[in-house]
């Protein structure tokens, strides 16, 4: 666990070497945060992009997420991993965004969200044949369709599990749900995906 309040560097033997000045501590903190941003930004962006299907919105929410994280970085005690902590902020921001949008439904808000077909176009070519590519696109489009029909929590849990490859315990920490609830949401989400795929088979 990281102790950000430590003001002295301690050797292995436990003897204090030299005190760190406030400026140096700030510099270290800034460097640490820069590393965190560099490491986790693409993943946070990916999750928000998959959740919103809107590149501009995902970028805005990612910026907000790291801005919020920067403001609260001093309060981050390291109880969970930085990724889990950041993901929690991102999930809350996303929730706030949809809530505000629902409340402000009378406002004309321009959405840059792409449709499902466009989202399904993205697929690494790899060594697939044209037929396999078409089949893969169809499957991706079907999964997107199922994801669109999921509730907010189901979608979040589903994306964290099957796009971000997160463990159930991490998902539980990020979403603030118990592991049992996460499993239940995941099971329902998978059932819907399976049903949707079943219709296509």
């Amino acid at each position, binding site marked *: 666990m990281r102790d950000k309040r430590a003001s002295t560097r301690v050797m292995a033997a436990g003897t204090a070497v030299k005190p760190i000045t406030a400026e140096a501590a700030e510099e270290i903190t800034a460097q640490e945060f820069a590393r965190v941003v560099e490491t986790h930004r693409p993943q946070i962006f*990916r999750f928000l*992009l998959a959740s919103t299907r809107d590149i501009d919105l995902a970028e805005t929410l990612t910026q907000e997420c790291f801005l919020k994280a920067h403001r609260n970085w001093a309060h981050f005690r390291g109880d969970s991993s930085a990724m889990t902590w950041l993901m929690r902020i991102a999930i809350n921001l996303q929730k706030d965004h949809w809530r505000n949008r629902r409340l402000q439904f009378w406002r004309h808000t321009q959405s840059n969200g792409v449709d499902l077909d466009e989202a399904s176009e993205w*697929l690494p070519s790899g060594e697939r044949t044209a037929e396999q590519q078409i089949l893969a696109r169809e499957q991706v489009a*079907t999964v997107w369709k199922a994801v669109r029909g999921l509730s907010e929590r189901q979608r979040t849990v589903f994306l964290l599990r099957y796009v971000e*490859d997160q463990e159930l315990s991490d998902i539980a920490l990020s979403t603030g749900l118990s592991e049992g609830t996460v499993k239940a949401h995941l099971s329902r989400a998978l059932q819907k995906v399976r049903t949707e795929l079943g219709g296509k088979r």
Partner: protein
Amino acid sequence: MSSHEEIKAGNRAADPDWAGDSVLEQALGNFRQSVHAWSDAAYSRPRTAMQIVTGRGWRFAVGWALGCVLISGSLAGGLYERHHLRALAQVKAEQEAKQRQLAIQPRTGSGDEDLLAAVDTDISRTVPAAMEPLAQLMESSEDQ
């Protein structure tokens, strides 16, 4: 397959909802790859800020124009005010000079003579014209 991928595959296999459905597994794998590819492309796309720059330039120009109008208006107003005050002061000075001249003028001329002449004209009496025919009659009777 890398060790990371092996762990992921192991996790998926351990998932009770996942096991035994190859189509679902394939679909979820494709979905994951698709989202990753899309996200990577979107994340590394070149950002163009043409619209924002144009908007800013336009606003900047309008700001400058308004600033120039305000400054030139203030200067013109100040100059006009100064000119106007100067003209008023000049007119006032002229009037004061004229009054001063008028006040000084009666004292400098032949004041006493003028005053007497004025009094003479005021108090002098002319012979009433109505008595003139009678006087003429008297003159003619004396002749006869």
